[in-house]
């Protein structure tokens, strides 16, 4: 099975949600702002529960917030 990685659209969704701050999202989901920063940067993959909480905050389906893509795609993008 090819290696896959989790990507997210949180930054765009925050912008769409009336420029919601990271702190506001953190308060709504019950985590620290640093955790939101880490998720946005792809340095931390949230638990399923936190992922659902974030999706519920933006009132979007989970797959619109998080996507599970092959690692090659992300490597190519980085290049």
């Amino acid at each position, binding site marked *: 099975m090819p290696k896959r990685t989790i990507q997210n659209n949180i930054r765009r969704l925050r912008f769409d949600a009336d420029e919601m701050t990271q702190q506001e999202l953190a308060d709504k989901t*019950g*985590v*620290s702002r*640093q*955790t939101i920063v*880490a998720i946005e*940067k*792809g*340095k*931390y993959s*949230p*638990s399923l529960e*936190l992922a659902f909480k974030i999706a519920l905050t933006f009132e979007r389906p989970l797959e619109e917030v998080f996507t599970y893509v092959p690692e090659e795609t992300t490597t190519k993008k980085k290049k």
Partner: protein
Amino acid sequence: MSYREKENIINIFSGLLITAIFAWAVYQRHLDGRIDLTDDFQQWGIIFLIYAGVSIVARIIIYIVFHIINAIATREEKIPEEDERDKIIKLKATRNSHYTFSIGFMTAIIYLAIGFAPYVIFIVFVVSGLIAEIIDNGSQIYYYRKGV
């Protein structure tokens, strides 16, 4: 730098400082002849218990001072609550710390097996305990910076 990273840096330095001061004080007593660390294992037991007590009290004081200074500097009085990422980082750091102490423990046993004096075991325990603590806090800083 986040509160957790600062907290870990403080833990590393306070651990080093407390152990260094305590070890120096105990060694001076040994040199003066007030205690014998080479043969009297009861003394080692007493020293370890005193060290545990001193370490806990000193850390509480250092932690309170750190929190006050941090609150003044950042104007954030509330200590951030631990979330799922903090818990995962702590677990991984504890795992690394346990591996380190296990290596120290095995080193002490090997020293004993090859004929070193028994008191060397206690010194290896103290050193490996200190290194394990540094690894614990260092790992946390690493995971906070590089991600988990």
